[in-house]
């Protein structure tokens, strides 16, 4: 008789802690943003993007999701087609 695994609920708690600590950081304001807005030019360049072309990335992600058992957290628009 197969028994399905139960999901670890730690993930949710970790996420909450992450968000909480970031919000706290903004709240206290005693740590200054260490990269000034006028220093962010290199971060705007195409080679520094995680994803440059949405359409192409979506296709690539679809190809992988259909053939692999894993899905999610990829940074491409959520909601795959679920097609068979």
């Amino acid at each position, binding site marked *: 008789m197969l028994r399905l695994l139960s999901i670890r609920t730690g993930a949710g708690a970790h996420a909450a802690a992450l968000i909480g600590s970031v919000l706290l950081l903004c709240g206290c304001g005693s740590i*200054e943003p260490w990269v000034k*807005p*006028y220093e*962010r*030019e290199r971060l705007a360049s195409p080679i520094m993007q995680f994803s440059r072309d949405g359409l192409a990335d979506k296709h690539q992600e679809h190809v992988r999701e259909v053939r692999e058992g894993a899905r999610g957290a990829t940074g491409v628009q959520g909601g795959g087609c679920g097609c068979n």
Partner: protein
Amino acid sequence: MTIPSTLRVLLALVLSAAAGLASAVTAVGSPAPDFTLRVLDGPNLRLQEQRGKVVLVNFWATWCGPCRKEMPHLNRIADKYRSSGLVMLGINVDDDVRNAADVAAKLGVKFPVLLDTDKKVSKLYDLNSMPSTLVIDRSGRVRYLHRGYQDGYEDLYDKQIRDLLKE
């Protein structure tokens, strides 16, 4: 006699450090730090020499969307108040000067574009947003500081310039 300006600046610095805010070298009410920068096609320009006129300084970059969005509004305001004694200065912080020149030409910038490639003036003014717009009065004091650009800011600039021109 009121508190001497240097002491005032020091006081502002101490207070803002205590409050955990950005350093207030450009706190509203304090004199605008002087600088001399190269202009895109012309001789160098020094801020102090603009005393007696109302100055609007706008820090921008080609890679900053809101900066480009704001530009046509700044052009319009520059044209409108030029003859009344407004000096508008655009300080560009791009690493690539040629790209800055191209974009400035494309946007039809009608006021001097100063080049702050090494970010010295940006640091001097301790900018914490892009774009940053400062409105400086005839005696060289920063009277208004706008962080970023939102729709409707150009109306604020217009009103503030008009008020300062009357002084």
